[in-house]
């Protein structure tokens, strides 16, 4: 009796799987056509202040959110945001979880091998913030490039890559989220955190009694682009066009989010 039930279950599973895969809508053809037909633009991002953040009501706000929303409205479609862990965002794009990554993604050679990037629509750079007690007297980049120095970074970011390249002798501690890395820094467990400007500078200001900026400004410069799956040149050209057309608007938005602190409230900083 038990065996009969097991076999029946097995056969049902097989039939369901066969039926399921034959009905699975395979989205072939140009991405922009698919998006238009679907009526929704699916955007992959992760929480990175001030590119994308959640305000006190849980709504997503930020530079990239504005960009994605304008892109969606220009295309005449709705925008659906899919927050994804940053270190898994490119695999998620490749397995079609969403259409495009608009999340402050730095264009790197390593990433270029897996995805197609649009022309840059913004520029980012890495900055460093340090703990006053743990990193006492360390005021140059070289000072942090010593064995025994621990630096916290977010896993999978260009910050992690930059930290590895600039401070090869230091020990890097990888965290899944930026807040965890910064908490580690505030607790004095690591000497410094490397992450994309302007967050480190903001942190140094907010916690000026325990943190400081050892080296002002950014020590790397990297272009930021949108990431698409490889091979779709038509869609890539469309996005590039949009970026070129909205150049002024993008510059204005960048200024608002990165060079002013007008958007900062008690809940959102």
């Amino acid at each position, binding site marked *: 009796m038990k065996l009969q039930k097991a076999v029946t279950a097995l056969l049902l599973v097989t039939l369901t*799987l066969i039926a399921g895969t034959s009905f699975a809508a395979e*989205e072939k053809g140009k991405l922009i056509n698919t998006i238009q037909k679907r009526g929704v633009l699916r955007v992959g991002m992760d929480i990175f202040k001030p590119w994308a953040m959640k305000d006190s009501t849980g709504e997503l706000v930020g530079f990239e959110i504005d960009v994605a929303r304008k892109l969606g409205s220009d295309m005449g479609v709705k925008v659906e945001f899919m927050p994804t862990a940053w270190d898994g965002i490119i695999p998620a794009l490749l397995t079609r979880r969403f259409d495009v990554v608009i999340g402050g993604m730095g264009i790197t050679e*390593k990433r270029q091998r897996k995805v197609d990037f649009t022309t840059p629509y913004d520029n980012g750079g890495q900055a460093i913030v340090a703990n006053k007690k743990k990193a006492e007297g360390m005021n140059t980049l070289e000072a942090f490039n010593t064995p025994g120095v621990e630096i916290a970074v977010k896993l999978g970011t260009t910050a992690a890559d930059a930290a590895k390249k600039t401070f090869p002798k230091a020990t890097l501690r990888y965290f899944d989220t930026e807040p965890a890395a910064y908490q580690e820094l505030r607790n004095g467990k690591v000497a410094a955190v490397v992450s994309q400007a302007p967050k480190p500078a903001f942190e140094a200001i907010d916690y000026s009694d325990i943190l400081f900026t050892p080296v002002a400004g950014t020590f790397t410069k990297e272009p930021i682009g949108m990431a698409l799956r*490889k091979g779709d040149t038509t869609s890539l050209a469309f996005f590039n066009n949009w970026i070129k057309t909205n150049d002024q608007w993008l510059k204005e938005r960048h200024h608002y989010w990165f060079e002013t602190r007008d958007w900062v409230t008690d809940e959102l900083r």
Partner: protein
Amino acid sequence: MIPPTCPLLPPEKRIPFFRSARFDILLYITVLLLSGLVFHLLMDSGEAQYPWDWETVPQYIISHTDGHWQAGLLLQGLGVTLQIAAVSLAGAFCVGLVTALLRRSDAPAARFLATLYLEVSRNTPLLIQIFFIYFVLGPVLGINRFWAAVLSLSCFDGAYAAEIFRSGIESVGRGQFEAAKSLGLSPWITWRKVIIPLALRKILPPLASQSISLVKDSALVGAIAIFDLTQQGKMIIADTYLTFEIWLVVGAIYVAVTAVLSITVSMIESRVRLQ
């Protein structure tokens, strides 16, 4: 040729369908179809096929440089995982034993404390406990990463171990305690020679699954940036995007570790068996 499963045959000459050869054949075909389907789904994911690349994987497991073998990142991570798991197992054992005894104690305060700890530990997710112990208690008590992880795992799995110990001890039955007392055995000898050997048989199987659970739970300690097996896997993937390959290898390593643990425990079990 009358098929052996024909229902018109008299019952003594007839083989029920589910015991016949034709059923076995059907089963094999189904399994083959299923595996073919799974394979097809993995390999042919539509337009954007996943580019499998197994060639760059072995260097992360083990590498042969300058004439000697060197453990790759994944094996190094495995070393850390085993270290944490081993110490936490011992910790969970101690915590569990103490809590079980406290629960059975005559003092209401002891029982209350034990119950409070059990409820808190079993009703909060392990990840939350790890974050709390490391980020909140850590700076206050000066606990470093490794010990924060060990403490969290010991407390979390210790709670389940405590219940296992308690049920094992209680299953021995009051008769044994009374018989030992009537023979004039001291409490220490009673426990050592009578109660524990009997309780051990009941305790070992669930304890085995709990320790396997602990090894798997240790995968979470990467959240506080410990270079364990899972965290190394994530770091390699962040660098190389070899998502499928690395996770398959990491999964296989965890299975191997838990299989060894499982076999060890069943060997111990066969030794303490009554017959």
